[in-house]
Each structure stands twice: as C-alpha cells, then as structure tokens.
C-alpha cells in the first residue's frame, strides 16, 4: 500500500515541538536519528552541544504529511535551520500508518 515518507532535518532544540506537531496531525509514529550537516544557516555539527541536527522520519498518509509540512513551514522556517522533503513508500501493514 502506498504511503508518504516525510523527512525533516532540523535543529535538535526543536525535537519536543516537532513530536507534538507530528502527533497532533494524526501520524502514528516517527523515527529520529542524530545528524549533522550544512545548509543555508551554515555548518551544524555535533561539535558543540547546541549545534547538532536531528533527522526525523514519518511514514503516514499523504494528507497528514501535507499537514505536518505546512504546519512546520508556518511555524519554524523563518527562524530555524530546517529542511523537509517527501517521497513515496510502500508499506506492508497500512493500518499501522
């Protein structure tokens, strides 16, 4: 079954808010890995506490992904380092997502 995979890369400091936002939109889960990287807001590496990124993945229905993206965009894009992208995935147990 088709679902969307939403990937968000952003500042560690936003983790709590991000998770709230994901749940509020109705997604049933998420996965987080520690990451570092570089983008418009410069290098963000794990060298110092503040600096690192998280990479958050959510598998969900297309409209949920849409809603999370818009919400994040509205709230955080102006002031925070953040990148997000969507792709198509196939899942075996669609009821989980």
């Amino acid at each position, binding site marked *: 079954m088709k679902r969307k995979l939403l990937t968000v890369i952003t500042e560690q*400091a936003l983790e709590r808010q991000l998770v709230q936002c994901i749940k509020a939109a109705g997604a049933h889960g998420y996965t987080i890995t520690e990451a570092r990287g570089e983008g418009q807001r410069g290098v963000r590496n*794990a*060298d110092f506490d503040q600096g690192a990124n998280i990479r958050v993945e959510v598998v969900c229905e297309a409209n949920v992904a849409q809603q999370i993206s818009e919400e994040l965009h509205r709230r*955080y894009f102006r*002031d*925070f380092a953040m990148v997000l992208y969507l792709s198509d995935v196939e899942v075996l147990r669609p009821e989980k997502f």
Partner: protein
Amino acid sequence: MQLDPVILFFLLGFGAGLLKAEMRLPSAVYELLTVVLLLSIGLKGGMELAETDWVRLLPQLGGVALMGVVLGLLAFALLRLSRKLPRSDAAAIAAHYGSVSVGTYAVAVAFLDTVGVPYEAYSAAFVVVLEVPAILLGIILVRGLRPDNGWNEVMREVFLGKGVVLLLGGLLIGLIVGAEGVAPLEPLFIDAFKGFLALFLLEMGLVAASQSGTIRRHGIFLLAFALVFPLLGATVGGLTAWLLSMSLGGAVLLATLGASASYIAAPAAMRLSVPEANPGLSLTAALAITFPFNVLVGVPLYYGVLNALYPATGG
C-alpha cells in the same frame, strides 16, 4: 602573574583547533566532564555551607540575583544605544552576559587554589542564583510578559537545565552529609577536579577555535563588546562582593561571574523563546571571545586589581 597549568590545556586545545588538528573529545565525554565539574563545585560549596550559618546567606542571594538583572539591563542598554542591533539580538546577548558561565567560575576557583587565596566555596550558590534572572529578563525585553511558548515551558527550560539542577543538587547533598559524608566521594569529585577541568578546557579550546572563524563575520562591534563588557561586569561583581562583605577570594569569584557570559543555559533558552535572534551572534561573543578572554586574561587581571584595591576585611 601566576600560571595555572589548566590554562595551558585551553591553549593546547585552542591551538590544535586553529590548526584543524584531527582531534575532538566526543560529546559524551564533554557531557561527563560537565556533570562532574558541576557536582564537584556544588559539593564543595555544600560542605562549606554545612559549617556555616547559611540561613544568614539567604538575603545575600537576593542581592546577587539583582546583580544579574542589573548586568543584563546594562548590556541591553549599551547594545541598544549603539543602534547596531535589533531589539531581539540585543536582548539575547544581554541574557547571555547577565547570566554566567560555570566553566569560567571553575577556572577562577582553580586559579585561587593555585595562588593559595582562600575563598567562599559557597559562592557556588551564587552561580545558581545568577544563572536564571538575566535569561528571564532577556525574554521579557522582547516578548513582554507573554512568551510564545508560554511561561511554563520557559520556566522548565530555564530552571531545569543541568547547570541549576546539578549545582543545586551538589550543594544540597554537600549540605546534608557534610564534609565527613562527602569524604568517600572525594577521590573522584575533589581530588580529580583539576584533571577534569584540564580536559574540559582542552575541549573548550577546540570549541572556541572552531567558533573563532565566525568572529570576523560579525564585525568589530561584537568583538569590542565581548572584550569590554567583561570589565564592566567584573567591576559590578567586585562591588557586589564588597557590599556583601566577602573575602578577597570571594570578590575574585563574583567579579569573574559578573564578567562571564553563559554559553549553555542562555543559548538553549533564547533559541526557543526568542528564535528570531541570531544565535550565532551571542554564541560567538560568549564562547569565542569572552570565554577565552576571561580564562587567559580576565581571571588573573581581576585578581591583580582586587588584590591591590580590595579592603582587607571586606566591605
């Protein structure tokens, strides 16, 4: 001027960082060092409190908290008068400089130990009390009394950072069990203190060097502020110590606290509560300029000046 070996570790890290040496302490090690240093400072303070009539000190804490607010307002006023920075950035920087750096405090403690000047170890309580007020002030200066993320969230962030929790925890434990109770913990928390501080400063040197590239980007104004404001802060700190009748050693500690800028609690809180402020500005100032300045020049300078001027018996 006395040379403390731990300073050389800072220079080693700084040099290695500038040369882009293939070296970095993993963040887990940095965390461990921070935890140990915080507990160590707290325990030492608590042991002293256990032998002091500490209730007498409670009003002093109010005075010290006030000092944090005054320093924050002073920094904000200076930055705004210069017309170089938007309100949010000025408030964020003010929050950093009104608050304090425990790492710098630890260096001052080590310095006093090395030169053999006694001090009030319970000043660790002042560190706790100074950490928070200026951060709240910075938020209020931008958001007024209604922060976006709500006061609950702000309070949690500010009062439950590891700095406050571990210092306060160490103080309480030391106070409860006293010197005798702390004794079995001493090999790790007291005897090894300077060794851990050396490793911590090695890492801080690396960090400061990696941040130093951003100094140029932010211009001469930030550089000047981050070098001059500590002198102001140290003066205010020294005066406060005098008002509180502290010893010469205590005055050096309070001057150092006044001169120091937070690079852990303040950045985290401001990022969430005043996100439009550029975090690069305040972190560069606090970490890449003021911290090295205080470690290398400030602490011995404050001691030198106070040693000459400070009345032998306190205020």
